[in-house]
């Protein structure tokens, strides 16, 4: 009986918090779907085609670079012993600890000096760097969890480090890699400050930045704003839905198991 009562109580509490979290989302969806014409209007007026294209270019590039580099760096830190390895890893961790707000001003001047502001590179390179800090940390945890004997068996079987990584170990790390991809995709897609500071050309604006400008122009039409928000949020939701099975597996195992 007690177990049953506890279960009911747990469900009530969880349900209440879920409702609290979902309420704004539901409200936006209801507002936006009130008139399907909202989406067409928002799409046209808000130039979301341009913004989504920019976001896609930046996000796909960041995810590709960060994933590739994180796998290599995580492999080195997780499986290889080399002088200064631990110290170097802490340097990588700094990238996780220092907030972007602290570095954005000097970063702006640096990128301006090399002529990269107002280009996609100003959005891609810094975010690839930040995501690599997290990705290396994440992938190192996975590589450390791989039994040493597996790597040694591959070495004795005649594999180079490169072949061992791609053919033997990484296939086991699919949940870890896909979880990293979802997280980096989400963070990059939703990134706002960097886009605000680095680009002024409207053609380079990313979706969240475009949405902010769109909101500025349409403060009174809530339904239209809601439609714009849904348009911007949809890609992240889709990526999450497609990869969610792996994502949850990766999160649960903390990337420590293949």
């Amino acid at each position, binding site marked *: 009986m007690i177990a049953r009562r506890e279960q009911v109580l747990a469900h009530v509490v969880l349900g209440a918090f879920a409702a609290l979290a979902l309420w704004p989302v539901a409200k936006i969806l209801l507002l936006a779907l009130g008139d399907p014409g909202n989406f067409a209007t928002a799409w046209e007026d808000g130039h979301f085609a341009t913004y989504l294209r920019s976001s896609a270019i930046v996000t796909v590039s960041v995810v590709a670079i960060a994933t590739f580099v994180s796998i290599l760096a995580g492999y080195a830190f997780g499986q290889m012993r080399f002088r200064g390895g631990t110290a170097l890893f802490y340097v990588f961790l700094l990238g996780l600890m220092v907030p972007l707000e602290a570095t954005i001003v000097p970063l702006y001047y640096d990128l301006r000096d090399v002529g990269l502001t107002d280009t996609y590179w100003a959005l891609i390179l810094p975010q690839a760097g930040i995501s690599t800090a997290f990705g290396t940390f994440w992938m190192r945890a996975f590589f450390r969890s791989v039994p040493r*004997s597996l790597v040694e068996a591959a070495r004795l*079987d005649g594999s180079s480090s490169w072949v061992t990584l791609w053919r033997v170990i990484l296939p086991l790390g699919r949940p870890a890699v896909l979880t990293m991809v979802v997280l980096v995709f989400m963070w990059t897609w939703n990134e706002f400050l960097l886009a605000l500071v680095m680009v002024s050309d409207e053609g380079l604006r990313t979706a969240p930045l475009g949405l902010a400008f769109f909101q500025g122009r349409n403060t009174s039409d809530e339904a239209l704003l809601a439609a714009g928000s849904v348009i911007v949020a949809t890609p992240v939701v889709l990526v999450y839905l497609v990869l969610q099975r792996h994502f949850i597996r990766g999160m649960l195992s903390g990337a420590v198991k293949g």
Partner: protein
Amino acid sequence: MSSVAFREVSKRYGTVEAVRSLTLEVADGELMVLVGPSGSGKTTALRMLAGLEAVDGGAIEIGGRVVNAVAPRERDVAMVFQDYALYPQMTVRDNMAFGLRRRRLDRAEISRRVTETCRTLGLEDLLDRRPRELSGGQQQRVALGRALVREPSVLLMDEPLSNLDAQLRVQARSEIRRLQHEVGTTTVYVTHDQVEALTLGDRIAVMNEGRLEQVGTPEELYDEPANVFVGGFIGSPPMSFLPWDGATIGVRPEHVRPWRDGLMGPIEGRVAYVEALGRETLVGVDTESGARLVTAVEGRARMEVGEPLRLGLVESGIRRFDG
């Protein structure tokens, strides 16, 4: 096939000397068992031979060539790991073919070798399964197959049977023995189990605290242990030791008998424990000198703990250890 030699090989981890000046030769085609308690350096020696650990001093030779600086994949050795280390995402077939593909053998040859090895090991029906779909015994055979299919110069085995249950272990042991005789590959086999060592090895090297205590055939180690450590490690139950004329003597249970004329003794003692094993009964006897003797009695022994006993030793079975 190749001979193997350790020449004054040493290995340190910080202040710990894992292997101390190990000198050992393994003949072409021989099955050499390295046996010893944990921390004796046997696995470290094996890993140095594989190239998985660097050698700090001395030289390791395979087929007469010093391989200290040769990469593992160029040593032409194959290894069966304690946890098998099968590639989880690959089928049995791919697990076995992986090393051959890395060596760029042509497809027909790879297929021929995999098929043949699987037939020898009875793995034909498992070719398309993945490791997690196999039992422990099957995984062990696949691991062995993956090593044998390479036709290496030297086969290394690191406690390959320790994850099997007792019955399967006995089966696998005789299978390994048979296969090794058939293919005739020089083999170095590491175990902490002296019964495994005695039943498998052409010769056995007993290691302790990084040192080689004795190397010899199973009979030599059993009958003529070089020191107290070897006598106490080899044999189940091990040798009993007792002080005698200022030295230490060692005696096996079968050489401890009830007292009669013609034996060494008599030795007075009391029964400390009785272990009925069915075919024989082991009786532990605490002697007046404080040493414990173990004697084996055929069949069942009607003895009580604390009961006084008078024993004698068969002189030809005595080993004398000085110092």
